[in-house]
């Protein structure tokens, strides 16, 4: 992948901003609130794309619905803004339909672990070869601050006005226990570590799950009187605890409690497609015809 290909089809010079060539600058300004963490994470992801020099022409990004669901729409890649919760199965189809693609799912906690939770666990179980970036802001942002499957106990949301009494997901533990071979968590304060993790994950295979804790000052912070986005970043600074290889059972997140960060899982494991090829080669021998890397499309 050459830098020339990377800067194709964009009229924005890299000198304007180092990640401008990776964005749809004709769609700026974006819709995210001031001090929202999603933009920072997009910056880290674009930096990782730049560092790894992956072939951007063969890179697709898929989002669901919600604040983070808008990420696909701002990335200058083949980009799919799909239905609520279905980014992972949509991405599964893309990857299996054209196996040479590098497919990233970029969406939020409500989208991927609430309405789309079933797809998350099954993609991890099958080890579908996609990179899954989940931005966790502990709340449904786009719809106005409703309770999420990630809202910490006792935190307030617009639908838990007296505080949340449900147990939230420990998402890194969920992904790891379902078999994801690469599992990490950072907050969006950890921009260098996050970029490094994205870059590493881009070159790994299988279902790579990266959770990024992000501030939502408009809703989560306001409803819980936690101050501004900057105050939340300060909170991450004081309360994030980096522990690579930690037992993910310890990674639960309580309200205004410590946030365990790091790379928790990084193992070699055959992907769905590799297992399928291996199995059919064994059982069918020469009769097995795998799908071509460019897909099973029929053309003249």
């Amino acid at each position: 992948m050459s830098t020339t290909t990377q800067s194709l089809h964009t009229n924005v010079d890299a000198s304007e901003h180092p990640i401008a060539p990776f964005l749809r600058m004709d769609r700026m300004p974006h819709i995210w609130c001031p001090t929202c963490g999603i933009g920072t994470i997009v910056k880290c992801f674009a930096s990782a794309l730049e560092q790894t020099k992956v072939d951007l022409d063969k890179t697709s990004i898929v989002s669901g619905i919600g604040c983070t669901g808008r990420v696909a729409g701002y990335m200058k890649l083949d980009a799919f803004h799909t239905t609520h919760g279905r980014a992972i199965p949509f991405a599964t189809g893309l990857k299996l339909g054209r196996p040479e693609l590098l497919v990233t799912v970029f969406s939020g906690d409500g989208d991927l672990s609430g309405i789309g939770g079933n797809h998350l666990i099954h993609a991890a179980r099958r080890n579908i070869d996609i990179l899954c970036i989940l931005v966790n802001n502990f709340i449904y942002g786009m719809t106005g601050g409703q309770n999420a499957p990630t809202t910490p106990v006792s935190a307030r949301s617009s639908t838990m006005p007296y505080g949340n009494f449900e147990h939230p997901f420990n998402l890194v533990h969920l992904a790891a226990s379902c078999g994801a071979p690469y599992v990490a968590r950072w907050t969006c304060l950890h921009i260098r570590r996050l970029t490094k993790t994205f870059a590493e994950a881009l070159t790994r295979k299988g279902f790579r799950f990266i959770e990024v804790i992000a501030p939502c000052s408009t809703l989560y912070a306001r409803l819980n009187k936690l101050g501004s986005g900057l105050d939340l970043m300060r909170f991450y600074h004081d309360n994030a605890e980096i522990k690579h290889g930690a037992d993910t059972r310890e990674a639960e997140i309580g309200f205004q409690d410590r946030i365990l960060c790091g790379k928790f899982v990084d193992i070699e494991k055959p992907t769905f497609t590799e297992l399928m090829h291996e199995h059919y080669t064994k059982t069918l021998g020469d009769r097995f015809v795998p799908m071509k890397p460019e897909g099973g499309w029929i053309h003249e």
Partner: protein
Amino acid sequence: MKADPAGVLTGVHYLDGDFACGEGAMAAGCRFVAGYPITPSTEVVERISRRFPMMGGTFIQMEDELASMAAVVGAAWTGTKSMTVTSGPGFSLMMENIGLGAMMETPCVVVNVQRGGPSTGLPTMAGQADMMQARWGSHGDYEPIALSPRSPQEAFDFTIDAFNLAEQYRVPVFVMMDECVGHMTEKVVIPPAEEIEIVPRKLTEKPPGEYLPYQNNGNKVPEFARAGDGYRFHTTGLTHDERGYPEMSEECQEKNVSRLLEKIRGSADKITRFVENETDGADVVVLSYGITARVARMGIDLARKKGVKVGEIRLEVVWPFPEKRIRELSKKVKAFVVPEINYGQMVLEVERCAAGRAGAILVPHAGGGVHDPESISSAILGAVK
């Protein structure tokens, strides 16, 4: 172009409708199927999962029908022809991403082997009560295409037609089978690959900088770019402009939705397909589709023996509905008799097109079997009294 021989099982076979449908998909060039088991449709994917590994196809059994349909829409964007298969309860779950497929203008095929409903209904027994769901099931305005086979041979043929129509108009196309056809075993002739006409996907020839994913190219069907070909396009389920960028305005909504509707409505005469017999001078015309068309034939013969002039319209393509022809006929006949395995769905279309000029008499059946031919013949006799 002609079919890829790898997917064509040329010969004379004794197959049930489900297997024949699976063979039709493979002959049409389908190479990605995502599905979730549901009676009475499962044999379609069982057939495909057995044969796909030998022709470069990938089958995946997803965690549910929401995921199956999402995966099919995703795979279709790679250019790989894609399909899912289900029955009523699964069809309900698929509606979400059928809407996405319609909005993103994604060529793909959805087979619904109908059973009795509502809800879990009669899993192992016939129904035709999802016809309006095929038309209106997902929210918002869009125009689907649907076909309804009456035999295993048609299950094979119409599944190929469904893929061709999906490619031509960039819409999800439905094959509305029923349990009876799905589980009925008959002779199926699969021709040689060079005799099967395939519509290939029309890829854009424009360079990436000039390509607009949703540009109206005169016939209202935009040109396609595959994911991974360097176009770096954007597509969304949100209302979008020609660039595929979301735009929340009445003007953009009007432009977007009217083109989605017009690309089908404007070509309805080319898409609608039906068989018409002995309607000249007929007092009554029986309109039917799927398995019911075969029972209706017996009902028609019984009525003829009693001297009634009965014509027949058998729908092959059920959506879009042949409005024009029904309007014309309504000026000449006394009544249409519409037997269907539901309590009145396609009859509503007949009634709408007849607009009081001719009667529209439903012969209902709640599901679980097919009509007694006599119920149809007595409705015909009643219509001319």
